[in-house]
């Protein structure tokens, strides 16, 4: 029910409510932007039941990716610490 999927705003649409075409991989669907009125073309949003409920923070996403990459070294560090005890 709370399933929400990230997609990229590709085009703003003319409608009563603020709407945009949002691309989820190769699938493009119209999504309501009423809850994220400042979303612009190119932004990633989290879509849930036809609405964008949040904007993705690219800087934070980058930090997570970097952290996931570093984890190998960190666990090696921990093991080295354990061994030296």
């Amino acid at each position, binding site marked *: *029910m*709370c*399933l*929400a*999927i*990230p997609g*990229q705003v590709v085009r703003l649409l003319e409608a*009563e*409510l603020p709407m945009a075409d949002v691309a*989820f*991989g190769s699938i493009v669907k119209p999504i*309501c932007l*009423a*809850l*994220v*009125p400042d979303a612009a073309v190119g932004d*990633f949003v*989290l879509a*849930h*039941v*036809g*609405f964008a*409920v*949040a904007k*993705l*923070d*690219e800087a*934070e*996403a980058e*930090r*997570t*990716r970097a*952290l*996931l*990459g570093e*984890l*190998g070294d*960190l*666990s090696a560090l*921990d*093991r080295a610490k*354990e061994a030296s005890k």
Partner: protein
Amino acid sequence: VKHLVEYRDHDAVKRLVERIRTTMTRPWRVMEICGGQTHSIMRAGLQQLLPSELQLIHGPGCPVCVTAEERIDQAIALAFEPNTILCTFGDMLRVPGSQRSLLQARAEGAKVAMVTSPLDALHLARKQPAERVVFFAVGFETTAPTTAATVREAHARRTRNFSVLTAHVRVPPALTALFSAPDHEIDGLLAAGHVCSVMGYEEYVPIAAQFGVPIVVTGFEPTDILQGLLACVAQLERLYESGGECDVLNRYARVVQPGGNPVARALIESVFEITDLPWRGLGTIAAGGLRLRPEFALHDASLQLPRATSPMGPSEVEPFRAGSATAVPNPRCISGLVLQGRRRPTDCPAFGTECTPERPLGAPMVSGEGACAAYYRHAPSSPRGEARG
């Protein structure tokens, strides 16, 4: 797909599991509140990868599962009314009320339509002005602002034939209820990232402090869940060693801001008010739900119920009592205890035999996010799980 595939990286999963293993010095029990996370855990087989001393407890975070039978009965009664179309999400259609599900009601002639967005229901009302279109609105705080935006739109453009039967539930009061039980076994909690994307996590800070349970805002992909677990066990270890305050940490920062989405929160606030609400299998939870404000009475389907249907007052359902499940039609179904995280689905005598997704006894076997359905589909010992490898 960007922002999905990268968080399923196999090597990162292995490294995170290793980090959790080296961080833990004693057993811990961590509850994930959200059914979406339960399914992700089962699908990725995380439980088998993690150290056995880290026990994952599945929480009541499946809105379809906790929707009260009385509410489903009301939706069915509305669907049988002349010139009325009842719209709801697909998940809700198969959940049994006290007599039947919405899908069974449709087979008996009730007008029931499946929608994927509340806006679909509003569009249907505009296209068919002679029909009354009722949207049966189910969901946690992730979904509530989408209902709120739709009700506002209907109200602003005077779509008089559109109304909403609300079954919106709130996570924090349910946590308070679970943690208030003196014998609860939850050491730490993963908060649902998508609920927090709307609400933020400030309201969890006093809960973590009051009950001494660290809370980590967590996403849905395997590496998200493992990062949440790592942050949770690291904090549990620290508290065990040196004491101190229980914190709320955010491990889903690419989506969740501390204050959530202020536009969505303001919409919820303007359309709904907080109410005591019966949760299926758990009983009435104080402040556990949302109902429409009186300004939107024109769009409130709970004020338009057929006379034969009893109104649903919190007083009619027994209050939440930890460890006891409210009555279910089949005494062999333990779904109330599964929803409280006190039993595993596989502890149920009916699991996989008398009770399957095709012929469910309890709601958690029906919904795509119910814990019983997750075990049935993905557990290595389940009929389906083996077939899928």
